[in-house]
């Protein structure tokens, strides 16, 4: 499954800060940065002809990724740069991070590009401990909002969304306020993935806790009175989760089963699910009827970043830069550029480059100057909740414990 994010937190940073490399290694890192022209040594004007030339000399690039899309990405890259061999590994988020850390601890520097979610670990552990370096090609700086490129470049924005069955509910979405899900009508009819072992889901829970004010207000709108918190419950976000679980929320071990559960046609009482947004694409492949609850109070879309970075002491730094640039899409792409199916072929591929593999609803480029995939028109205006990396870092352990306690009641 895709990106099982972290879980681990400040924890790692303390540990790693203490075990952090000696000065000699720091010096090593500095000199690597200098040769690779990264970080503070990244020139104001990047000479892409030169980078491409050097990348071809390096002849190889190794990518660790949290998602299987990396395989398509690698294929597409090699269509454009057949001289450069791509070693792409789809490891899932947890293993991606773990492998980078373990290899570097063992003194092995074999990976060039690291693509994964896991804000807390990537930003508060790997980045400050010099296991990865943030790299934003200069030409992208204007078209990506600062929070999506600093301190770490977002490769794609993804989201967990509320999904319902549009076949059963043809006229209108079945709910307009998330608190309806805590009513008896939706008992046993709301499902989500277990957060134990899925960092994306854990991140979602943290996001709900973080936006407790919005959840409290939504309750007021819905019930016409202020929310009363249950015993020992900290805020409206936790209260929402608590009531969902009391309403016999069904826990799944897999995301695609969720897509089936809410999307299978011909059901009388299909559940609503918290699903990864990209499963909406199963509508086409599996003839499902999933639809996204864009207009629900307070929000039905919980967005998060999948990051990309260059690994410390990457053996092929120029190929790594080229790969990062490739996956973010080319310089001359505009919002009006016309692309046609199949996106991963011919003219469309040339126009989109690395965006082609992600050109579908549910995986959106952080750039504001690129075309939106068909069906994703609502994305830009939709109300989206974002999680703050530092909040996640400080709270996922608590959320995890909350879940363990609540599910064993």
């Amino acid at each position, binding site marked *: *499954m895709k990106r*099982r994010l*972290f*879980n*681990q*937190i*400040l*924890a*790692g*940073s*303390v*540990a790693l800060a*203490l075990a952090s490399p000696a000065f000699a290694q720091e010096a090593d890192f500095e000199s690597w940065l200098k040769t690779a022209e990264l970080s503070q040594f990244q020139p104001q004007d990047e000479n892409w002809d030169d980078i491409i030339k050097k990348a071809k000399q390096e002849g190889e690039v190794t990518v660790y990724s949290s998602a299987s899309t990396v395989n398509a990405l690698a294929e597409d890259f090699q269509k454009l740069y057949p001289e450069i061999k791509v070693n792409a*590994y*789809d*490891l899932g988020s*947890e*293993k991606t991070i773990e*492998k980078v850390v*373990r290899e570097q*601890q*063992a003194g092995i520097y074999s990976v060039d590009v690291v693509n994964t979610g896991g804000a807390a670990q990537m930003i508060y552990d790997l980045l400050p401990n010099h296991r990865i370096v943030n790299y934003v090609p200069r030409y992208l700086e204007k078209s990506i909002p600062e929070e999506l490129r600093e301190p770490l470049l977002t490769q794609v924005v993804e989201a967990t969304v509320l999904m319902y069955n549009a076949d059963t509910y043809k006229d209108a979405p079945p709910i307009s306020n998330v608190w309806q899900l805590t009513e008896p009508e939706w008992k*046993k009819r709301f*499902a989500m993935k*277990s957060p*134990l*072992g899925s*960092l994306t889901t*854990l991140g979602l829970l943290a996001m709900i806790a973080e936006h407790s004010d919005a959840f409290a207000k939504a309750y007021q709108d819905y019930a016409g009175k202020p929310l009363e918190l249950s015993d020992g419950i900290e805020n409206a976000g936790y209260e929402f989760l608590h009531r969902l679980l009391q309403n016999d929320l*069904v*826990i*799944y*071990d*897999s995301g*695609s*089963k*969720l897509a*089936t*559960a*809410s999307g*299978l046609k011909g*059901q009388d009482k*299909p*559940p609503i699910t918290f699903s990864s947004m990209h499963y909406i694409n199963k509508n086409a*492949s599996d003839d499902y009827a999933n639809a996204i609850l864009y207009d629900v109070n307070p929000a039905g879309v919980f967005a998060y970043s999948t990051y990309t970075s260059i690994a410390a002491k990457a053996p092929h730094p120029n190929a790594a830069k080229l790969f990062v640039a490739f996956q973010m899409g080319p310089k001359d792409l505009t919002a009006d550029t016309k692309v046609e199916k199949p996106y991963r072929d011919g003219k469309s591929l040339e126009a989109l480059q690395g965006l082609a593999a992600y050109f579908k609803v549910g995986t959106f480029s952080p750039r504001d100057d690129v075309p939106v995939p068909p069906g994703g028109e609502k994305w830009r205006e939709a109300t989206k909740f974002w999680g703050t990396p530092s909040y996640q870092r*400080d709270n996922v*352990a*608590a959320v*995890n*414990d909350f879940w*363990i*306690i609540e*599910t*064993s009641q």
Partner: protein
Amino acid sequence: MTTLTNAGPRKGSYAMGLVRIFSAPEKMIALIMAVILAFLVVFPLFQLIRETMTVQPYDATYLPGRVPGELTSFHYERVFTGRLSWALFYKPFVNSLITAFGATVLCLALGATLAWVVVRTNVPFRETVNAAVVMPYMLPSWVMALAWMTFFKNDRIGGASGLLAYVTGSQPPDWLAFGAVPIIICLAFHYYVYSYLIISGSLSTVDSQLEEAGAIAGLSRLRQFLSITAPLVLPALGSAVVMTFIRVIGSFGTPAVLGMPARYFVLPTQIYAAIGSRNVGDGYLLALVLVVMAILFIWINQRIIGVRKSFVTMSGKGFRSREVDLGPFRWVVFGLIMLLLCFTVILPIGLLLLQSLSKTAGVFDLSQLTLHYWFGDRGGVNALYAGVFQNPQILSAAWNSLRLAFFAALGTGILGFLIGYVVVRTRGTLASRTLEMAAFLPYIFPAVAFGAIYIGMFSKSIGPIPALYGTFALLVLIATVKNLPYTSRTGIAALLQIDKSLEETARVQGIGWFTRMRRIIVPLASSGLVSGMLLTFIGTMRELSLIVLLVTPSTAVLASVIYSYQTDDVPQLIGAATLLLVALVVGCNVLFRLLFRNTKMGFA
């Protein structure tokens, strides 16, 4: 070796000692084995204990300012007394006890009844029945769970419906679809083979003249059984209970498949979740609980019945086993056994086959049959997944499974032989007993816990050994060590039968150690060893609990790939890949038996 010979005795007593060791190779082997076992078995246990008592990186949010590695009782408080303890430990612990006791009792009832029927009655086709009742053991234990899901799945989890709901149109209740009941039944249908084999082995050595003596003394049938047969079989019952209980309480796959949808967590699934979210402190402590329970169980067993470990019931006098005539009931009994086989072997395999052939999961309609999930290419019926024989992931996993099982069998064979040799040759010494015990130790580690310990141990380089995390070698290593109890036991048994004099004669004639081994000992001991190796082979092919934490995409084996399809919800591929696994296990088993036709096969 040459350098040592050159060193000669003149270097004083130290060198003299070395020379002495080399002239008695069993001492040197004992030393090497001791070092290996200390490192691979004893050290991990200490490691496990140590990690539960120190601050782990994950704990930073709870213990700000504490440095990882410092001593702490934090995990013990959190797991046993904190506000999380009910959720983390007590409830899963109770659940584990319920399923483990339930399954053990059911295993014992099934196994003992079958054993009695096969050994002591005139049930028809006894030989065939004897061979058939051990069949479930050839299947991975979670095959039953998958089959159960295919049949009883209800609408609690959406998507494809189960066969029962599909045919009858009504949904089976939650308690029948998920949780304790199905877990107990599925585990029992797999593990009853242990008690069957142990008890039938023991029953067949009970001379029925003893019972007849009882009859002459005026005892009723029941009294004969209670006061004569039962006590004689008791030690076997005891070991059957211990073996079954330890295996059942440590098993992961079945509770994972059938427990999660109903929030029914047991210790192994909690360990998996804790370690999966990097909370190793909690995970290891829960693992330690399982280890302690296993030890406790063995200890209790020894206290209760261990004193009278065995009885001499076989003597030079005639041995007779009286058959109980079941009369016309023999066919009824036979029918019941066939029914059991239907449930434990034919039905699960049939369901998996049906599942692998259905175009849409959950639609069991003849017009919906497809071979896509066997031979289809990507982009056919299912755009995402190619059929088993076109699927590089499955094929490479199958190859990995075979390689892993082969190397593990080879490894345990060699180690088991050497340990057996040393233990037998130094019999009576403390070293011999210690070594024998250490070789048995891996048995008490529940598989998931053992995997968890090895992750911690081998993620960094230790001395000359590089970091093995993520390598195939680590899988081989752990599979070898975990299976060591079987081969060391068969090794000891085999070598006990070879009299020391054979080797001494050869030694007097100046034949070196290696030649003695190659020409005399190994050939004589081989039949026992091969059976132990076969067990390792079969066991490793279908192992999931042990390696589920250790596999990476490149080292994935069939069992772990099937588990990942389980979470990815591709039931057809699960069916097809599981059948492939079953075919490989059965095929290799047949091949082995043909190759070593004279070998008497044991079991694990």
